[in-house]
């Protein structure tokens, strides 16, 4: 499996986590399936769970779907060796990593509660960034 394939699969998982938390935020789900680790509802009901009028989880869905779309595009013959696409993936996942780091910081030091779904999403963001970095190193022009 290529790195872009792995990125696509992980992005799909991330999108489902975002979708689940969005459904909770919209009130479709009464309680979150949250293990004994952490306190999902504290995080999801805090004022930090909304950004620019939309739930943070919804932004997450948008992010993961974008990553998924670019990764799948990157598997098409037309783009498979494209350094521009590799670079776009690197930039996007780099931004995702920074944003996840910020959210995790807020959970730990501001809200003082951890949401296991958010942490899982942050771990996915980290792994996806590492894969995108390795992928970018392969596709970028080697001779400058």
């Amino acid at each position, binding site marked *: 499996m290529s790195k872009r394939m792995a990125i696509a699969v992980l992005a799909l998982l991330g999108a489902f986590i975002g979708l689940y938390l969005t459904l909770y935020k919209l009130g479709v789900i009464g309680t979150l*399936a949250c293990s004994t680790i952490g306190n999902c509802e504290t995080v999801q*009901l805090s*004022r930090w769970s909304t950004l620019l009028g939309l739930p943070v989880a919804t932004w997450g869905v948008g992010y993961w779907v974008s990553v998924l779309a670019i990764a799948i595009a990157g598997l098409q013959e037309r783009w498979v060796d494209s350094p521009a696409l590799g670079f776009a993936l690197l930039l996007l996942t780099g931004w995702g990593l920074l944003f996840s780091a910020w959210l995790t910081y807020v959970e730990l030091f501001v809200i003082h509660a951890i949401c296991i779904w958010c942490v899982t999403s942050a771990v996915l963001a980290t792994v996806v960034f590492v894969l995108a970095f390795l992928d970018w190193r392969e596709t970028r022009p080697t001779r400058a």
Partner: protein
Amino acid sequence: MGKDRVEPGRGRRSAVVKPPAKKRSNNAFYILLAVVAIAGVGTITYLTTRTGDARNASPIDPTLPPVQSQGYVIGSATAPIEVTEFADFECPACERFTSITEPDVRARLVNTGTIRMRFIDYPLPMHRNTWNASRSAACADAQGKFWEMHDLIYANQDKWNGEATGNPDKVLKEIARQVPGMDQGKFAACVDSKEMQAKIQAHYNIAQQRQIGVTPTFYIGNTKFEGAMPFDEFKKQVEIAVAAAPKHAPATGGDTSLKSSAKSGAPAAGSTKK
């Protein structure tokens, strides 16, 4: 890097272009992606329909000490069982229960005399304006208008919540104008004086004492249920509790410390507005 780019429109350099021999099929990958998608949809469907099932249920500790405040009651004093709801006015799941499930509960269980409902505020610390909402509901209760205000507070949660306004009392006073027969001057004075603070604190303490971890939480019979549940599930649990309740006993839930001196805002049987 730009100087030797041969296809600027596509960002591709001739030196990097590989021979087409690498034309592998991605079919296996797409199948994997589809499997993950189906598993994801299945998991979310399971998680969204799971609320109210027995895994959220646990027995109530009968040794808990009596409490000072009785919450707010609606329904008949002779109903065979009492359902207690612990809820936060600013919690989205509580709003959902009130707007989607509670109309059915009132019409088909409360008004028919099957249950009596008791509402206990549990204003959670992460909600900025929930204390204001609880105080205004208590002020409406002072005029016998708790349930009317309760329903309006939830229906307008998007207008007064901590993200919507920094001046919730003003918005709540506007909402209170929709309550027929309410003395607005008295209501405003009550809200401004925060005289209901101690009462809300007492309700908060009741919930803390019972280690309520989720809003809404329901006591139905001898069982505690966490999370909003659909009407069918609610009714099923009520039927189980009614079947287990002793005949002719004054209605109680399993929690005898909340037993019914239903003095606080309790309308008579059949006086519910829905």
